[in-house]
């Protein structure tokens, strides 16, 4: 029983924090607000060089072969740094799906490409309704012409504007069970019939698009996994995405708490430090409880994924439900502790508030995961 990071994990966290605090300053982050692709190619290449873009990929696909714990701590650091870029989309979502279900040549081409930074990938999940169940997948894929023809729409596709390729779950056959008949396609993001329009988010570091598919031809070799049997892959990716999103929110929350503690030690009012007021001190204490509990939730869930623990799915839901609420509280109270300055654009605090808010509804909100937890309880 050891809940601490291994030396290797701690070293990875330290190097991520070092790199991001030097290169991914909030000054840099702000330059990405209006950038249409929302990330820096040189930085991306450096991260590839550090091995981070293939963090969880097999070594034979130029990856580091690490697990969800390592990915979670990387994402926590990215949340902490408000890192702007398609890391989550490319490595966790699309990369995760290809790693789970891709064939040898797909892995070589795409995982290798993602790891080297040459390929930016993403995954489109939601359509009209914010529905994370199989019922939400309606985009139609019709067999024909040596492949498939896709028609339909995906919304909230992360970094679609930056992507080279999109992993798209689509419906290849209709069944009473909505979990059946879903297949996964790798679609060229700039291909014929693919139209993206940006959906500007309050978290300006997280780009997303609505993507329309008008008779988009996808060759057979771009089917990932079995035809009609793709939903279990999506489910697994969504579980890991729930853990990853929780890690991002944890990073945002811990940073917000630390800034608030520092501010309360420094700022004076009525002749004393802000942190001497019980109202502020108790708020900060509550924030610490939320942050430390979130840490426990995120890393238990990440470990459970790696250990293929029987409660891995439950733990992912627990993390997403708990950390979503906790990060909301912590990042919100941080603004309150800071007072006026926390409400200004030039002060950085709102960056984390918005980052946490961005991830709250993604991959299932707290209610959705509480429902899953209740069903797990009932067995």
């Amino acid at each position, binding site marked *: 029983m050891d809940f601490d990071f291994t030396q290797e994990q701690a070293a990875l966290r330290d190097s991520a924090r070092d790199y991001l605090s030097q290169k991914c300053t909030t000054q840099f982050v702000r330059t990405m607000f209006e950038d249409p692709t929302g990330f820096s190619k040189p930085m991306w290449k450096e991260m590839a060089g550090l091995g981070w873009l293939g963090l969880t990929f097999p070594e034979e696909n130029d990856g580091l072969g690490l697990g969800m714990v390592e990915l979670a701590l990387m994402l926590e650091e990215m949340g902490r740094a408000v890192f702007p870029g398609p890391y989550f989309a490319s490595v966790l979502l699309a990369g995760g799906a290809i790693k789970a279900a891709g064939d040898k040549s797909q892995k070589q081409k795409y995982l290798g490409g993602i790891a080297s930074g040459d390929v930016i990938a993403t995954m489109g999940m939601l359509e009209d309704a914010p*529905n994370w169940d199989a019922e939400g997948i309606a985009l139609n894929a019709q067999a024909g012409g040596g492949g498939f023809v896709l028609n339909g729409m995906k919304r909230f596709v992360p970094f679609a504007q930056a992507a080279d390729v999109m992993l798209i779950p689509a419906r290849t056959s209709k069944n009473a069970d909505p979990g059946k008949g879903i297949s996964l396609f790798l679609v060229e993001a700039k291909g014929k019939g693919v139209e993206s329009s940006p959906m500007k988010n309050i978290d300006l570091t997280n780009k997303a698009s609505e993507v329309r598919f008008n008779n988009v031809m996808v060759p057979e070799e771009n089917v990932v996994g079995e035809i009609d049997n793709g939903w279990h892959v999506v489910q697994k990716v969504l579980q890991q995405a729930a853990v990853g999103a929780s890690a991002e929110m944890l990073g945002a929350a811990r940073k917000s708490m630390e800034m608030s503690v520092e501010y309360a030690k420094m700022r004076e009012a009525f*002749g004393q430090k802000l942190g001497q007021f019980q109202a502020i001190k108790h708020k900060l204490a509550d924030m610490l409880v939320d942050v430390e509990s979130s840490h426990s939730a995120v890393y238990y869930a990440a470990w459970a994924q790696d250990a293929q623990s029987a409660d891995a799915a439950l733990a992912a839901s627990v993390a997403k439900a708990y950390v979503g609420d906790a990060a909301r509280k912590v990042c919100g109270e941080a603004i309150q502790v800071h007072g006026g300055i926390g409400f200004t654009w030039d002060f950085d605090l709102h960056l984390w508030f918005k980052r946490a*808010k961005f991830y709250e509804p993604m991959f299932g909100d707290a209610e959705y995961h509480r429902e899953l937890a209740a069903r797990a309880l009932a067995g």
Partner: protein
Amino acid sequence: MDLNFTPEDIAFRARVRKWFEDNTPRGEMRTLDERKAWHRKMYEAGFIGMGWPAEYGGKNARPMEQAIVSDEMTRANAPSAVNGLGTSICGPTIIVHGNEQQKQRFLKKILNADEIWCQLFSEPNAGSDLASLKTRAEDKGDHYEINGQKVWTSGGTIADWGILLARTDTTVPKHQGISFFLINMRQPGIEVRPLKQITGGSEFCEVFFTNARVEKENLIGKLNQGWMIAQTTLGYERGSGTLNRVTAYMMSLRRLLGATRKLKKNGGAAFDDLLVRQKLGRAFVELEVMRYSGLRTLSRLEKGLRPGPESSIAKLYYSEYGKRYHEWVMEILGPYGNVLEGAPPEFSGPDRIDGGGQTAWGVSFLGSRGPTIYAGTSEIQKNIIGERVLGLPKEVRMDRMQSKGE
């Protein structure tokens, strides 16, 4: 108890509603001249400074009449008056504490928006603890020379004049060395910079004073009595806030209700979901209670009772409600709530508070973090309620330990 509006009130409301229906400008107003023209039009209709004494150009209007006008303005999504701070705070201060010459010079031009006013109180290091302000006013014989910085000045970029708190004596306890000035904003010693907020908007400014000048005749009241003057509750603009805030939220809630009928959830409309309805129900319940409390306040005002520290209860209620409400909005709309641009029109947000079209739900959500901070944080309100309403002993605080004499 009788919570019916009188027939006179009902008739007055009908007239006011008709007027706003007929006169509210369509589309956004882009120029200052347009905004001044709208202010004057409302003034001519009797809706500006209506609580002021008649001798200074007001109408001695009852709180209920003021409440009704505010409410109908909100209902019509009418642009706010460009000189709102002038008529609600600056003018009344001059009426109560100014001398005859100051009244003659300023009041008329406030009412007709010939001169736009702003308020120069808060500083970067003097927010909740306003009395620790550091902007200095130095006696230069025929005038005072101002150096320092103010922040959270709304309308700073368009203001002609401002009311200013500045320190005139640094040798006495902090509350005793502050004076209250009228300052001409159109002078070289003043630089105004817009202050961008987390919403992306810039309704406020920072104001920098470098050897700026205040004529001696523009001191309000006596030297070093500024704190007392600033603390006075000014009684001419009452009733506002009792009804219109509820109406604004109600309009937002109705738009949210509409969105829940379009948004899909679990194969049906979001409105069909029990959890969504609980949130709508809670939002409605708490808003109705705000309305009842507003009527209760209004009924006290109508009897000529002053809104005392109890107004902290209203402030705390509505500002904390706003935060909760907008979190429910975001929960209900899910990822659509986060979208500023590019969402389908059925998920575009509520009317902007100051009129002139819609804003995104996300912007409205971000904006909801402001009211628990400005005009006295929730923490300050709770201190006021605890000490001035409940009569609890004051907390032991370092500044009280250091200068018992204050």
